[in-house]
C-alpha cells in the first residue's frame, strides 16, 4: 500500500501531459503489473520529464524491449 502511495506521488511531474498519462495508469493498468514490471515502472519514473514525454507521446521508441511494453501499456491507459 505504501509502495503504491510513494509511486503515486512520483507520478506528479512538471508537465500536464505526463501528469494525466501517469495518473490514469497508476489508478488503472498498474494493478495488473507483476512484481518485475512494477519495479520497472518505478525505474521509468526516474527518467527526466523531457525524455518520458518523447516516449509516452510515441515520438521516440525506447531501445529496451521491456520499456517499450510498459510505455505501450501506459499509452493504452490514457482514456479519451
Amino acid at each position, binding site marked *: 500500500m505504501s509502495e503504491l502511495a510513494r509511486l503515486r506521488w512520483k507520478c506528479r511531474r*512538471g508537465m500536464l501531459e505526463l501528469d494525466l498519462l501517469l*495518473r490514469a495508469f497508476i489508478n488503472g493498468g498498474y494493478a495488473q503489473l507483476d512484481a518485475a514490471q512494477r519495479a520497472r515502472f518505478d525505474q521509468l519514473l526516474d527518467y527526466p520529464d523531457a525524455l518520458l514525454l518523447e516516449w509516452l*507521446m510515441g515520438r521516440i521508441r525506447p531501445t529496451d524491449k521491456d520499456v517499450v511494453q510498459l510505455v505501450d501499456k501506459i499509452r493504452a491507459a490514457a482514456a479519451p
Partner: protein
Amino acid sequence: MEKRSFDTLIIGAGGGGLRAALQLSQAEARVAVVSKVFPTRSHTVAAQGGVNAALANVLPDNWHWHMFDTVKGSDYLGDQDAIEYMCRAAPRAVYELEHFGVPFSRLETGKIYQRAFGGQSRDFGGEQAVRTCAAADRTGHAILHSLYQQNIHARTHFFDEYFAMELVQNQDGYFLGAVAMNIADGEPILIEAKTTILATGGVGQLFRTNTNALVNTGDGMAMALRAGIPLQDMEFFQFHPTGIAGKGMLITEGARGEGGYLLNGDGERFMERYAPNAKDLASRDVVSRAIATEVREGRGVGPNRDHVLLKLDHLGADIVKKRLPGIRDMVMTFLHTDPADTPIPVYPTAHYTMGGIPTDRHGQVVVPVQQGAEEPVPGLYAVGECACVSVHGANRLGGNSLLDILVFGRAAANHVIEQLKEQRYHQPIPGDAADVALERLARWNRQGKGESIAALRAQLTKAMEDHCGVFRNEDVLQEGQQAVLALRERLQDAYIDDHSQVFNTARIEAMELENLVDTALATVSSALARRESRGAHSRIDYPERDDQQWLKHSLFSLEDLKMDYKPVRMKPLTVDSFPPKKRTY
C-alpha cells in the same frame, strides 16, 4: 517537532528558486531549498519556446526595444523600473546559463540560436524582432537540469518532497522561515531562516481547462495571503484560445495558421460572425471570447455542449502529418483519434498567472503602510511566477517568464546576501509559531464523513472557468465570487478517508485545495472590482481600457476581502517613460 536552521530558506525548486539558491550558495550562505516534487520535476521543465534577450545574433536588436515591447505588451500596467532592469539584465542572464552548461542551439556563426516570437519588434514597434534564445524545444528542461546540477555542486541543501504549509513570523511581522511536512512520513518540520524566498510558481490549476502541471496550485501565494500579505493584479490571467477540451494541453496557433478552423454545435464556422476579416486568426482574446460565448449560448459541441471543434481534416493527411506532427501525436495519445480524420474538441485554456505576491525589483515583498508609500516586509522575498514584480503587467509576452525567473531569482539572492551581512544571528522564534500549521495538519487527520476533496476541486475549477474565465461581466463575476465563497464554506466540512502517514497524497491534495480556494477568491474578487478591459482581463460590460481610473495595481487582502490599489511605477531607471498608448499590433 524537528527544527533545522539556515541563513536562507527557498520554497520552490523551479528555475526561479534554483537561480536564487545558486547565487546564495556560491556566496557561501547556508541555503535550504524545499520542493514538494523532486526539483527537476518542477513546472519550469514544460517551457519549450525559449527565453528572451536582445543579443542581436540574427537581426539588430537592443534592450531598449525589448523594454518597449514588454511595456506595451503589459498594456502599460507593468512597472517600468523593473522592466528596464530585466531587459538590461537579459543578455547576461543568458550568457550565465551558457556558462552553467545549458546547451543552447547554435546558428551557423556559432552564436546562440534565436527565434521570432509574437509581440517582439525592432525600433519601438517596427518590424518583427528575433529575440528568443532556445535550446531546441527543451529550453526549460535544459535550464532546470543545469541549475540543479550547479546547486548540487555548490552544496545547496535540498528538502526533496517536502510540502511547505505555512510561513512563520514573529509579533513584529518579521518572517522567520516556514513549517513544512515531509511527504514521505508525514512528519512536520520547522525550518528556521533569517530570510525566506517564495518561488512556488503559478496557479493554473484554478481553472478546469489549463496547461499547467498538477503541482501548480498557488501554495506560496496562499501562504502569503494567510500571513496577511495582499496579492497583486490577480485578475490578469493569460488564456490561450485552443486547449484540448477537458484536458487543457495547448494546440498552437500554427494549426489555424495552416488553415484549420473552428466549428460550433450547429456545424457553423462561427468566427466569421465575430471577426469577419481575420476569422479564425483573430487575436487570442477575441477567439477565446468567441468560443466561450458560443458555449454559453448553447451552441457548444458534445453531450454537455461544453466545447467547440477545431477542424483540420480538410487539410489532407499529408499536411497534418508534415506540418503539425506534434499536435497529431498529442491528439492521438490523449483522444485516440487522428486530427487528419476527426476534428479536435477545444476550449480556452488557462496558461499563465500574471498576478502574485507584490515585490520590488530586488524581490523584496512589499506592502502598503497606512496611507504612505509601500515598505518591504522584513525577511520575506518572492520570485518567479508566484511573484508580481511587476514586469508582465496585464499581459505577459512569450519568452519573458523564463527571463523573469532568472533575472529576479539572481537579483533577490544578491539583495539577501547584503542583508545577511548585517544580520548575523537568527531572531528568536515565538513558542506558538508553528501552531497554525500544526492545527491545519491535525484538521485533516480528523475522522468523519463529509464532502470529498476531488468533487469540491472539480466544482471550484468549473466555477472559475465559467465565471472568471475569458467571458467576464458584473453579473457573471458576482455569481462567481458567491460560488467561491460557498465552496470555501463547504471545504470546512470536508474530510479525507486516508489518514496514513506515508506519501499521503489525499492530505496533500486537501491542503492544495485550501490554497486554490484562497487564490480563487483573490482572482475573482479582483476581476469583479476592475471595471475596465486591459490586457488579459476583458470585461464585456466595460470593453475599453480606462487609464483615468484604472492605471493602477490591484491589491486583494483576505481580511474582509478588501481591495486596495497602488500606482503603476511609470518611471524607468534611466530612460524616458513610455506613456500609455492604444495597443495595436
